[in-house]
């Protein structure tokens, strides 16, 4: 465990501060200057050393503060990215649902279009045939004509029957008259013959 973290530490330090410049060097210098200051003799030199050490220390503190701020900022950026990532995932899921909806709608629309086209195809065929109302009217008119003509035929036939009967009556009466006239003639002939025979009887 210790070996791993050591490796990590070394890798990180090399990454950040490979050439030894910056904070690492400053801390080493600080340690060296502290030892020098402890060993220094005169007051002035000691004081200037002390000032220099303080400034180095504040520089180190400043850079550490900066690093901490950067670390905070990174954490917040990460949170922000997480939030955006989740939002994008939601919108992707939403888009998937919309796509499924739209696909259903497309199927529905295709069905509707198919029905419309079937209707159109049948309508075209039906248009070729003549209108039903007109044919009905024509049929009615023809029916009426038929009736009218049949009435006329009936009346003409009645008249014909009547005339036939009248002629029949006329002819039969004529026939009877002829018969009676003939009978009368025959009777008168017979009477004359009888008269003649009676005269010849009385003569001698």
């Amino acid at each position, binding site marked *: 465990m210790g070996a791993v973290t050591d490796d990590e530490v070394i890798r990180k330090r090399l990454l950040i501060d490979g050439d030894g410049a910056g904070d690492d060097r400053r801390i080493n210098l600080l340690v060296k200057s502290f030892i020098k200051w402890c060993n220094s003799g005169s007051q002035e030199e000691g004081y200037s050393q002390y000032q220099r050490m303080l400034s180095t220390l504040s520089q180190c503190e400043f850079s550490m503060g900066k690093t901490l701020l950067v670390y905070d900022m990174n954490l917040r950026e990460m949170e922000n990215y997480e939030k955006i990532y989740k939002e994008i995932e939601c919108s992707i899921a939403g888009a998937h649902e919309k796509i499924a909806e739209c696909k259903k709608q497309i*199927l529905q629309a*295709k*069905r509707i*279009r*198919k029905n419309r*086209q*079937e209707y*159109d*195809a*049948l309508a*075209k*065929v039906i248009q070729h045939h003549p209108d039903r109302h007109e044919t009905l009217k024509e049929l009615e008119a023809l029916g009426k004509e038929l009736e009218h003509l049949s009435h006329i035929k009936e009346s003409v036939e009645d008249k014909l029957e009547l005339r036939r009967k009248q002629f029949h009556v006329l002819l039969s009466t004529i026939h009877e008259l002829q018969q009676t006239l003939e009978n009368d003639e025959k009777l008168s002939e017979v009477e004359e013959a009888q008269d003649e025979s009676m005269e010849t009887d009385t003569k001698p």
Partner: protein
Amino acid sequence: MKHQTSTLPFLSVFLEPPMGMHGQVLAAAKEAEVFQALQRLHMTIFSQSVSPCGKFLAAGNNYGQIAIFSLSAALSSEAKEESKKPVVTFQAHDGPVYSMVSTDRHLLSAGDGEVKAWLWAEMLKKGCKELWCRQPPYRTSLEVPEINALLLVPKENSLILAGGDCQLHTMDLETGTFTRVLRGHTDYIHCLALRERSPEVLSGGEDGAVRLWDLRTAKEVQTIEVYKHEECSRPHNGRWIGCLATDSDWMVCGGGPALTLWHLRSSTPTTVFPMRAPQKHVTFYQDLILSAGQGRCVNQWQLSGELKAQVPGSSPGLLSLSLNQQPAAPECKVLTAAGNSCRVDVFTNLGYRAFSLSF
């Protein structure tokens, strides 16, 4: 694959006698190569069928072989050249496999006079044997008419066969007995279609008439003589009906006469599709009619008679179309077309040909 030298008798003309052992081996290999190449050149794929799981496609050719292709492998993102070759090929019939149909566990294939059943689960292993092989009762025992069309009637769990003997035979799938024979056609039958609402079967054949048969009474209900209608008849092509499809109220048929949409109740032709080449396969799909025939393209028509699209395939003529609409495999929802070549074209989107599977 068994050598079928009987089908290519002229092959021996091209071969020279081998010289020595090594020469013999080489010559044999060469001979096999040449033979295979010639076979593929002259191959015609007559029929296709999709497996019930939707992931495999079976194709039957004129040598009697059936090849099973894996659609899911060929459509996946890491498909290689080998995925476009069959997973397994076996000799199913002695003659061509004219038609195939799948039930939920079996593949039924029909050729010269007989129909065989294979289990989908078994076919992917080598050396698969057929489950059963039956022959419908023909009028004389000398007749071996080809079976051009197979139709499944799910409601009564039966299979209808029709072909060269001009009759429709019904076979019950559970017992295997042949229940009815429907007679009426005067010439051989090319295609069958099922009208689901009133269980009726439509059959179209060489005599130019589409006959509707009621399955319950086993009688002919309606006859439509397509060639007698002048809008669609094309006497120079003949009167044969090559393809039929129905949508309960409507029917589309084509072949010798032009491809026409009919309204069944009134037996009137409503739309004639302006396609000069005779069509060999037609099907309804959503709001379109897909047809294919002589000519490279799969044609897509609107019901109003307009040509929506013509998508070229890789075979010079197409004989069968198959739409994989099995609900178990929505990612394999493709249209496959096959015909006068050894290739099966796969259309993932109706607009273009994605790739071709090959025997």
